[in-house]
């Protein structure tokens, strides 16, 4: 599979070189530097030269490169590189050039553990942190045989993500529903695309080996006819046909959402979900992403943007951007940032806003309008004018889209709600659960 993992900084210096197979030669580092880092024309993340393939991702100011010599699984290679980023971030906080330079011994150690002969092994952060640590002192644990046999048991077991001996005085579970709402609206105000990418992040501080069941107001879950169809299936997946058929029938169950697709952390029993759509799992300790989902129907757009952009001759552009909050007046959004693109030859701008502050950022070619607190149902307006300098080369301005950033607590664009989270454990302790909702802007663009 993978022949080697290389890490470069932006200048093209090789920070990490770990070969897993004999066909990964030191020379390859130079070739990657010359062919990719020093070559601005390369636009694809995959590059094959001869029979050597470089797949790279960029994170912060480093390049992470996987070298393969065979017809490797490209999806797996990239997933692995991104996992490496996740690992690096959880170990060092920030995974950048400095972190790599300061921790290169640890990174070699990690690579040795998570890849064997180029095949990815266990990459669970929590498990790895048990025996590969930033402080050398802790490796004493790994040095004692009884502890390490426990560790290895976990690193390979069916519950490779959880230790067995976790104890908390107070058993708590926090559930964060975080939604990224994406919008693409045309200049005429028609919605071209609106969808929600959601994730449910859980922080579980639960003792023992708890078995959790998790319920949402997912319509397929609630709709009794669907579960009947699923329960009555004779096998061969025929029930799923019934399920997807129902999806397009009437929106019977009010207050429920239709999830287009969901993906789960590996602790979730997928077979169980497939059969009767019950999300059941034994959670890893601490924070993890339980599931991701996608919803496209009935998306509640938190903000309505009404921009008027007028180009007056070749010397002036006038803006009038009105934003209305579409959510309940009890809620409010924080950190609302509106970026309004200006032509490249803007000389100066004047802005007037009914709320918040607007500033021209020449390096971004944007007017940035910041509203720290945006209460529900209110409407704010920005009027601006950009004066353009005369240019000899009159090139059409492509008018990039206006984009929004925001976050709103206790609001979900999809309407998703957590209905229950049940925890079952041998010792039968009671546990406290907390749920929080947040909606952020994904790519919220108005052309």
């Amino acid at each position: 599979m993978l022949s080697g993992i290389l890490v470069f900084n932006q200048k093209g210096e090789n920070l990490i070189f770990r070969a897993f197979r004999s066909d990964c030669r030191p020379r390859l580092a130079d070739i990657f530097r010359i062919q990719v880092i020093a070559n601005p024309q390369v636009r694809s993340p995959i590059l094959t030269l001869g029979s050597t393939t470089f797949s790279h991702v960029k994170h912060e100011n480093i390049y992470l490169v996987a070298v393969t010599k065979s017809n490797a699984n490209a999806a797996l290679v990239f997933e692995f590189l991104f996992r490496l980023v996740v690992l690096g971030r959880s170990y060092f906080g920030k995974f950048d050039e400095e972190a790599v330079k300061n921790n290169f011994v640890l990174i070699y150690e990690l690579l040795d553990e998570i890849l064997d002969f180029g095949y990815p092994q266990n990459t669970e952060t929590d498990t790895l942190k048990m025996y590969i640590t930033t402080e050398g002192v802790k490796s004493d644990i790994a040095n004692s045989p009884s502890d390490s046999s426990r560790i290895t048991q976990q690193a390979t077991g069916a519950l490779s993500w959880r230790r067995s001996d976790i104890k908390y005085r107070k058993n708590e579970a926090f559930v964060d529903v975080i939604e990224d709402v994406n919008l693409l609206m045309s200049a005429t105000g028609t919605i071209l695309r609106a969808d929600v990418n959601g994730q449910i992040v859980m922080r579980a501080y639960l003792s023992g080996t708890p078995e959790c069941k998790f319920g949402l107001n997912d319509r397929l879950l609630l709709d009794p006819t669907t579960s009947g169809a699923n329960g009555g299936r004779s096998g061969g997946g025929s029930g799923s046909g019934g399920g997807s058929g129902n999806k397009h029938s009437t929106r019977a169950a009010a207050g429920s959402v239709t999830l287009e697709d969901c993906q789960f952390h590996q602790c979730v029993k997928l077979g169980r979900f497939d059969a009767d759509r019950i999300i059941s799992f034994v959670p890893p300790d601490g924070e993890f992403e339980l599931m991701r989902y996608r919803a496209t129907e009935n998306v509640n757009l938190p903000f309505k943007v009404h921009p008027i952009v007028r180009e007056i001759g070749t010397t002036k552009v006038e803006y009038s951007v009105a934003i209305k909050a579409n959510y309940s007046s009890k809620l409010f959004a924080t950190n609302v940032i509106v970026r309004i693109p200006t032509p490249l030859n803007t000389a100066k701008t004047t802005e007037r806003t009914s709320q918040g502050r607007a500033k021209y950022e020449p390096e971004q070619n944007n007017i940035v309008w910041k509203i720290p607190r945006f209460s529900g149902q209110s409407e704010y307006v920005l009027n601006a004018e950009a004066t353009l300098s005369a240019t000899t080369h009159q090139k059409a301005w492509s008018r990039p889209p206006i984009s929004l950033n925001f976050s709103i607590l206790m609001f979900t664009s999809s309407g998703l709600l957590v209905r229950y989270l049940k925890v079952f454990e041998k010792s039968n302790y009671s546990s406290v659960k907390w749920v929080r909702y947040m909606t952020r802007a994904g790519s919220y663009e108005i052309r």
Partner: protein
Amino acid sequence: MAMNKIRGAFAVPRKGETFELRAGLVSQYAYERKESIQKTIMAMTLGKDVSALFPDVLKNIATADLEQKKLVYLYLMNYAKSHPDLCILAVNTFVQDSEDPNPLIRALAIRTMGCIRVDKMVDYMEEPLRKTLRDESPYVRKTAAICVAKLFDLNPAMCLENGFLEMLQEMIGDPNPMVVANSVTALSEIQHTAPETRALQVTANTLRKMLMALNECTEWGRVTILSTLAEYRAVDVKESEHICERVSPQFQHVNSGVVLAAVKVVFLHMKYVGPELAKTYLKKMAPPLVTLVSSAPEVQYVALRNIDLLLQKQPDILNKELRVFFCKYNDPPYVKFQKLEIMVRIANDRNVDQLLAELKEYALEVDMDFVRRAVKAIGQVAIKIESASEKCVNTLLDLINTKVNYVVQEAIVVIKDIFRKYPGYEGIIPTLCKCIDELDEPNARAALIWIVGEYAEKISNAGDILGGFVDGFNEEFSQTQLQILTAVVKLFLKRPEKAQGLVQRVLQAATAENDNPDVRDRAYIYWRLLSNTSDQNATKNIVLSDKPPIVTTISSLPPTLLDQLLQELSTLSSVYHKPPEQFVGQGRFGADAVQRAAIEEQLQNARENPLAAAAAAAVSGTAPSAQAQNNVENLLDIDFDGGAPASAQKEPTGELSGLEGLAGTPVRVQSPAAGAAPAQGNLDDLLGVFGESGPSHTSPAGASSGGAGDLMNGFAGLDLSGGPAPAPHGAPPNSGSQDMMDLI
């Protein structure tokens, strides 16, 4: 003693970095030794040769500090080859470690032993490997399983003699899912490198075990198991159904590798289950595929290329999902281009309005390459969906009115194809003719001239327009010259009174003053046809005959190649849309084989997909960069750190052979059908027929702006008419078809 002698042989410097490191490595303080080892590893990473320190590093191998041990092992793995004799000193530690009470150390020992590629070490591996394969700790067993694959890579005979393969096959039944996954991984690797060992034979029993482990092992293990399942041919329908049922829950996994692998298994096994069931699975795999489109750009790119393949086989699986493929402003170009292609593929008469509005939006952006593709996509949609053709033409006219130079040019090329498919748009010709002065690309000029020639009877000033071109005939690109020639002849045949002088002039210019043999030949052919007086209609029958209609301008892969690629879903092969033989592993068979493959790949890339070309070649197909590429090629093949591969030994003058390959390049461009492999030849023909021509087209006189119809126009019609044939009958069939392409 022995150590001292060896050290003497290396003549150690008395100062400098190496000296300091050495002093640290033999220090009496443990922390200083550890620090020096770290520094040594750092120097190694930076590419400095610290192999001279080998004996001193080796002294630190016997330590209780696990971290230090790992560092020493890392050093050993890197430099073992340079000091094969000294490695023997480490063997004892390895063997001891492999019996350590701590499973982490046992695993570390066996893992590292397999990476020290020295014969002496291999000899000592047998016992530890046998023991660790039966270790009580699953962690050690899973590591040992991979070690068997390493041993097989080093010494297959030894691996077979000692029965390690059988042990590994038994381990598929291991109670631990990760051990199962790694055993399958190792066996599958051995199976692929040496199919004759029949290492991985899936039986009903192993199938059951793998399906069980599938739900419990790590995500990476799942990918391995799923890939194995995809290669497996089920014995009957029932088994296929069973596999699909057990695998489809994996669509919901968060790792895109697992999702794609699961899609692959279900897609391949679906062929054998009932059509109803297959349909439900197709429906079921659509949402996860769409979800992949919202992942990181790199993963997205892989997913999009795979979706493209799946759509070519099953065109309607995503036809409700057009919107998710809309390009975001910040998408990287490689993602945008692929999204465009997919959007055109899933266009139908229900979503076409939405799509056109979107494409028009793209056509007004600034990235020139993207804009061109968007305009081209509009043309593809027009030809794909008849009911939308009028809207498409109107959109294109709107775009022409923007007067943005490259938009206009691309739009005209596209409109030419639309004319070929749908009659009745002659009304827009005057609008097109107005742009004539703005066209500076041969493609666009040729397209417009073709239109003028084709509709000469309806354009009152056709003579004037063409006259202008004839005046500057010798300044045009040969591609445009050919079109001028044809257009003038068409005009003459349609309205002889207007073009008598013009045709004389152009034939004169093309035959007497032109250097290009293609242009001269074509001019001579027309000349003879026109001077043929025995049958007045023969010339008309040939030059003005009806053209077969265009069916599609969307490029697709030939069915056999497509089926082959579907077996390779989610691999590099599926990203490049090329069979793996074209880009992997021929290094063993000689440098020139690799070079040929690389050159061919690059050329084909340039022809079909400039983006992939940019991926395969660092810079798209210009000669100097091709040369740079070849140098790189040679660098890749020549081993700089010992253990040279066969290729370098056979071809000591690799540099030279690269240049030879280069010299061959233009020849292959001229006649693609002659040099390419059969499948590739196929593709070439197809591409030619569809008039596919990227901006980075390497052949100036290639079959670019033409089409299938015109192909028949030149010679084929001639045989039908039964007139005297001036055609070069002696020409070989291959180049014959090439000529026909040119005779538009």
